[in-house]
């Protein structure tokens, strides 16, 4: 087990983790503010992936560039979904929310099966299989681009929530729902806005993912699970937390894969989730409510 092997694996885990973090970002935002358990998260990302693949197929549009229009569309869809369908469920018990989103997920998955068929699809950009060699370390280009995008999106979102008026208002809703109402904030609109933002994040993540994996109708559920693991570990409602959680999961899975059995590396993530849930349920960077 040479040092360069370990280094390669750590770097790879880090980059992958950042992409996972981007994927979980949307979930963290939605869960942290609106408190809705979005079990259709993975399916939403799958739709975004299909969108990126379609755009690439039709216009040869690079997924990184496609992220912008797809995110815009998803923002609108997310807003409408929250305002129209999900809003009455915020006060309903969790199991009702869960079934609502499971139903939505089922519909999405099977509509995609009907429209696109069961085949896997992907994009083929020129640089997709390129890598940089720095001495003994080999770094994957696509992963770097996706990771940079993750960092950029997180930074942007963080800035929005920290420095803008709307962002502050949303944070107020998250902290104190009743207080926000009293102060006169249009909570319904802000929730819908948040869901829209979360959906836009998912869209960006989906576009990035197409650089790395194939899309098929059935890939959604595993991403949903992964998203929740990362969000819990990183901390609810914390954007840097989502990235940190992603990185943690990415690197620990990589290490587990290297030193123990790769096929069991997911067990490690779930074990981590259990430990975090028990000992620090607010996650690493979340705040205790």
């Amino acid at each position: 087990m040479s040092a360069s092997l370990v280094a390669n694996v750590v770097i790879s885990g880090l980059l992958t983790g950042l992409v996972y973090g981007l994927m979980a970002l949307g979930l963290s935002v939605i869960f942290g503010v609106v408190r809705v358990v979005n079990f259709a998260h993975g399916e939403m990302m799958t739709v975004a992936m299909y969108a990126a693949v379609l755009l690439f197929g039709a216009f040869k549009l690079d997924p990184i560039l496609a992220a912008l229009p797809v995110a815009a569309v998803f923002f609108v869809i997310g807003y409408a979904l929250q305002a129209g369908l999900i809003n009455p469920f915020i006060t309903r018990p969790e199991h009702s929310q869960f079934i609502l989103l499971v139903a939505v997920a089922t519909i999405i998955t099977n509509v995609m099966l009907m429209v696109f068929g069961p085949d896997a699809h992907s994009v083929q950009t020129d640089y997709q299989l390129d890598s940089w060699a720095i001495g003994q370390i080999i770094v994957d280009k696509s992963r770097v681009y996706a990771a940079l995008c993750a960092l950029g999106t997180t930074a942007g979102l963080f800035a929005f929530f920290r420095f803008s008026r709307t962002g502050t208002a949303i944070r107020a809703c998250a902290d104190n729902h009743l207080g926000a109402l009293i102060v006169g904030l249009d909570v319904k609109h802000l929730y819908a806005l948040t869901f829209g933002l979360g959906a836009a994040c998912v869209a960006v993540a989906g576009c990035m993912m197409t650089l790395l994996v194939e899309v098929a109708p059935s890939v959604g559920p595993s991403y949903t699970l992964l998203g929740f693991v990362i969000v819990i570990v990183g901390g609810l409602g914390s954007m840097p937390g989502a990235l940190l959680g992603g990185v943690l999961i990415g690197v620990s899975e990589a290490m587990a894969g290297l030193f123990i059995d790769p096929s069991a590396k997911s067990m490690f993530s779930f074990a981590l989730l259990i430990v975090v849930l028990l000992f620090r349920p607010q996650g690493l960077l979340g705040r205790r409510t």
Partner: protein
Amino acid sequence: MTQSKRISRRQFNTAIAGLGAASALAPFGIARAASKLKVGVLLPRSSYEALIGQSCQLGADLAPAVLKSMLGVDIEIMNADTESNVNTARTRAERLIHEGAHVLVGAFDSGQTAAIAQVAEQRGVPLVVNIAAAPQITEQGYKYVFRNFPTAIDLVRNGLSLIGDLFQATGVEARTAVFMHVNDTFGQAMTGGIMKTLPHLKQLKFKIVDTIAYDPAAKDLSVEVSRAKAANADFLLLVCRLNDSIVLRRDMVKQRWHPMGVVDPGSPGIYEEQFAKSLGKYANYVVDNPPWYNPKGALTGMVEEAFRKRNPGEKFVYHGLNAGYTFEAIMIAADAFRRAGSTDPKALADAIRATDIDKRVMLGGPIKFNAKGQVEGNLSACVQILDGVPKVVLPEYAAEAKPVFPWPEYKKA
């Protein structure tokens, strides 16, 4: 939410339930006139296994016309979707029998096939398994279950010996291999088979220096590939599925790992269309040894022609395995029907048991069932991706091209 007039939930559900109950309690189709054979085809056409299920379906769809011209028998196909789910598989099987299916064909997935087999045996309706590798299916002492597909044990043995043939044909001395396998049913069977049979296969002189099992649902295999590359073996022995085979090969390129080649003893994935489409030139020279159709088989031309007519957008080579075995399963039923002259299930089962068909689509000896209802002579082919298309390179009598090993990008480290 405004409460406007609409059918109440209860009325709707009652109506639907009534529909289901009424159709279920309708008198069982008594007409067993020996004019038309009803074949119930059970396949996973939605959910996780949809891709392969729908591929198999193509073989079922073209069967009636081909078998009519070939054997002069009338066949009606009754389709059912197992939804990649064992509960659904069982109830759909019951439903097909209830609706008058004389024979069942299916179901690709071993768990679902086992559930259907129990129903078939219970009801005395023959089941001809098109694809399913778990050995247990034909080890239950069933009298109504027949399988025209190699068991996992056969697959392993055939696949491994073909590797030996490959080395012999290309004159290569590969001494070490790193073995990567997906941790699923097939991967596990392969691992067990390899561990058991490799020491005994004298013509296979290579040693496995590292074994890396990976999760079929893994999105990222860079760690596994790093580990495999570090083993510095001559070639990669790989057991995989479609999605992970693509991710893996991509990571091999990204990490600049150029072994002598990638050889798969027989799992799905590599010969599927998406593999070549996604990887472009990097798909070339990868080798797989699946049970395959015989490009020069007696029936292959006819079936391929029918396939092309029905599915102008698809290439037969990507569906030959799934559609071919499904077609053969229905052909077995049709042939038995012709010999039995009746649709009585017991007569059909006896006729199937006496099957002896040597004009085939698939590679192997004649279709003959042993005492357990298993066909013993099915063979695999060494298939290599050349110019973006899977081509048979071994055995020589069925070959379409010559094998290339080691592949061109191999650099002696």
